[in-house]
């Protein structure tokens, strides 16, 4: 839903990395998108291309890896992949769990020159 906002922040991060490294060019931008964030990768790519066109980020290519959500049960310590229709522990059914990964969006790596 808010892919444009996310794309804008990614562009800002990439610009910062370029400046910090005195780089003129940017290549691949590795992004991790947790599926619980409800960000659609195709839409994110579309937005990123639209806002970077004609800028020095024009050649940046988003490489998006979708991160499936995983949780850890507080009752039996089992780690499991969460599904949207039921977040409870897959091993013991407990309602007490912590989401480990899959909620956030992060920029993992940026190629610059």
């Amino acid at each position, binding site marked *: 839903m808010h892919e444009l906002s996310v794309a804008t922040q990614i562009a800002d991060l990439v610009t910062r990395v370029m400046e910090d490294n005195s780089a003129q060019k940017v290549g691949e931008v590795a992004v991790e998108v947790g599926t619980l964030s409800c960000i659609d990768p195709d839409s994110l790519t579309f937005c990123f291309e639209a806002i970077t066109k004609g800028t020095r980020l024009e050649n940046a290519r988003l490489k998006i890896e979708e991160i499936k959500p995983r949780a850890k049960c507080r009752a039996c310590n089992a780690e499991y992949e969460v599904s949207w229709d039921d977040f409870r522990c897959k091993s013991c059914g407990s*309602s007490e769990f912590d989401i480990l990964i899959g909620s956030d969006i992060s920029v993992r790596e940026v190629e610059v020159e």
Partner: protein
Amino acid sequence: MKKVDLREKVLTTNEKLAMANRKRFGETGTLVLNLVSSPGSGKTSLVEETVKILKDGYRIYVVTGDLMTENDARRIARHGVEAVQISTGGACHLDAKMVDKKLVKIGSDYDLIIVENVGNLVCPASFDLGEDLKVLLVAVGEGDDKPVKYPPMVRASGVLVINKTDLMPYTDSNPETIKQNALKINPEMEVFSVSCKTGEGLDRWIEWLTSRLKTKKKAHPEVLDSKSG
């Protein structure tokens, strides 16, 4: 090309603004609720019933969001509570900036701010306003599987209010099914069944809300002191 290892979380502009809102509400000890639901589940009715009961004991401010009209703000204001409408024009949700623009003028003199979001079970889930809790309403008869159809909103909400229990005799809907469907996705939710029409169940909701208001205030005794003096 050089690979720069970044591993940095992307925080959107909205998230940053929401954090600023939350900090401000924290400093003033103001409890902020963000009411979300499909159109027609009874958000405005719940606000009306809530302010009728609490307005004499608490300073309340209501922000209502819709694409057009000021109908909801008018409905609420007739109970003697300050209410302001945000007409989004076409946007399907409120964001932290819209709320900040309305609230920055009113200062800190409120115990409770209720934000009634645009009726939409999708987009408001992604836009934190800086609230303490999202309160999700689902009405009897709108489909007991609503929570499993819109799980991101259930995950984002801390409270589920099942409204219109007075309609139970006329539908096949079962509030317990709605509740169990929601708890599968978010087991930590507080759940209330109410009828804004008959008043049934509102006492439990008000009792819970009052307790949350006290907890929020207690965390800020200096605010309480300055206001009681």
